[in-house]
């Protein structure tokens, strides 16, 4: 069985082709839109996607060495993400499915991040720590869905680090040589400053820490590296603590970390230290697949298709706020 998947929820127009047996991944082609300044401009992203889409799809089929009639189904991200961006992928997928008479598979982007991680590490039932730009949450499979065990009560870890870096005039650019500006600035820090550490049950909160850190910074009496160091230690420790709480609560023996924010080497080493003490099998999705891509959509589509899940093209609406815990997970137990 071969499935072609299309991803277009934010910056990346990605097309992946996967198979239900080794080597699984047959093609992985991506066209990434980079804004000239600031954040993502949906209009610009859309015109970029429309321009790149045909070539990206043709290239993926070439890479897989197949013609489109050998594809068993078309999978597409229907959410969550930016509406205008999602609609490009959805429109193309609907057209392909209709024109070539292929089943259309509606894929949730967050579920796909998890499923590709499970494939990479051959995990069966992990606790998932999801750290992307927009999300900070702990989830795992329970009674047929990815239920959320913990999350941020306000802003995501990624958003927190970026905002702080910007306010401290360390960014943009936010990441230099694979290291976030807060991590860089923290390298010279030595003294730990007492700032709010907020863990409520299995949830974290960063807004109080952000406010307190900026207030301290504005007094002008604080050593900047010490501030970065303390804030970083608090924020990462809180994430590791709620992950550990999730493990204790669910009893899972595998821990999967997905999303681009997990690429911080400091956070990785903290997660590794915790996992080794708890004797848990840790898998941190490598950057290549931690960022958005079509392969994860194709793979999730394949799992769904095997359970006869498809959608009629005329009913394949995009859902910008489609949460991970709204999807029935039929292919895992």
């Amino acid at each position: 069985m071969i499935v072609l998947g299309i991803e277009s929820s934010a910056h990346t127009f990605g097309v992946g082709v996967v198979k239900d047996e080794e080597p699984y991944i047959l093609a992985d082609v991506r066209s990434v839109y980079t804004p000239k300044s600031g954040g993502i401009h949906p209009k610009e992203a859309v015109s970029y996607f429309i321009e790149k889409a045909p070539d990206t799809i043709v290239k993926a089929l070439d890479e897989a060495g197949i013609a489109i009639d050998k594809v068993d189904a078309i999978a597409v991200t229907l959410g969550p993400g930016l509406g205008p961006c999602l609609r490009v992928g959805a429109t193309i997928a609907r057209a392909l499915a209709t024109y070539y008479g292929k089943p259309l598979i509606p894929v949730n982007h967050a579920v796909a991040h998890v499923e590709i991680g499970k494939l990479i590490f051959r995990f069966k039932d992990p606790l998932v720590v999801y750290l992307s730009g927009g999300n900070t949450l702990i989830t795992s499979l329970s009674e047929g869905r990815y239920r959320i065990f913990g999350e941020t009560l306000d802003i995501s870890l990624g958003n927190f680090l970026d905002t702080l870096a910007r306010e401290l005039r360390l960014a943009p650019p936010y990441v230099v040589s694979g290291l976030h500006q807060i991590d860089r600035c923290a390298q010279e820090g030595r003294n730990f400053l007492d700032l709010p550490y907020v863990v409520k049950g299995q949830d974290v909160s960063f807004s109080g820490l952000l406010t307190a850190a900026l207030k301290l910074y504005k007094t002008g009496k604080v050593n900047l590296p010490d501030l970065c160091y303390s804030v970083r230690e608090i924020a990462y420790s809180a994430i590791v603590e709620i992950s550990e709480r999730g493990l204790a609560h669910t009893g899972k023996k595998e821990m999967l970390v997905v999303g681009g924010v997990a690429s911080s080497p400091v956070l990785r080493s903290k997660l590794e230290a915790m996992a080794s003490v708890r004797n848990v099998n840790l898998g941190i999705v490598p950057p290549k697949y931690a960022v958005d891509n079509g392969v994860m959509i194709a793979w999730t589509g394949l799992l769904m298709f095997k359970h006869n899940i498809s959608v009629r093209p005329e009913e394949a609406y995009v859902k910008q706020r489609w949460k991970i815990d709204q999807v029935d997970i039929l292919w895992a137990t």
Partner: protein
Amino acid sequence: MIKSIFCGPLKLIALGAEAALYRTCFEDLDALVKVRLPKPYRDPTLDKMLRSRRTELEGKILAELRLKGLKVPALYYVNLENALLIMEFIEGLTLRDLVFMKGGQVTKYFKYWGVFTALMHETGIVHGDLTTSNVIVKDEEIYVVDFGLAKYSNKVEDRATDIHLMIRAVESTHYTVKEALLKAFSEGYKEVLGEQTFKELLEKVKEIRMRGRYVEERRMRKNI
């Protein structure tokens, strides 16, 4: 060094997220030892600060609730330097396990749990990690344990966080019997603090759920 105060061997019974729990004998009593272990992933100053502060607060809160007559483990001993507490060992099944075994037939315990929570809130204390794993049923009564994240607060926000955590624990692990369990809990809570207080609390819970991940609910409301 610590060992000398015990009258029996230390048997590890759980490695929790932040503490190791041992069962042992202390002053001829069946006892639970809770030690907050140093975390290799934390800055040493932060680590010491968190362990000592949390141990102190937990000890105070356990003692206070016990004095108020609420069913929590009795506190036997405190050592802040080693972030260690010794307390009564409560033998029984967790409410989490009971729900898995008996499904919706455990509503009465949820009612007791509601009563307990309201009384605790009335005392000015919130639990901070109010899940079914932290309720133990012994001799048909419920004991609430693990006050590791508890604090003094009369804020509606903090009380609502307790309720929010309780609801989420039920939703995330006992989804199929959710409604009957939540109803029983709310009946118990209302018995103590009244219909109106609980209603206000639920309003706040809704507000909490509309932050963070519950964006779809927020979005829907905005569109109305």
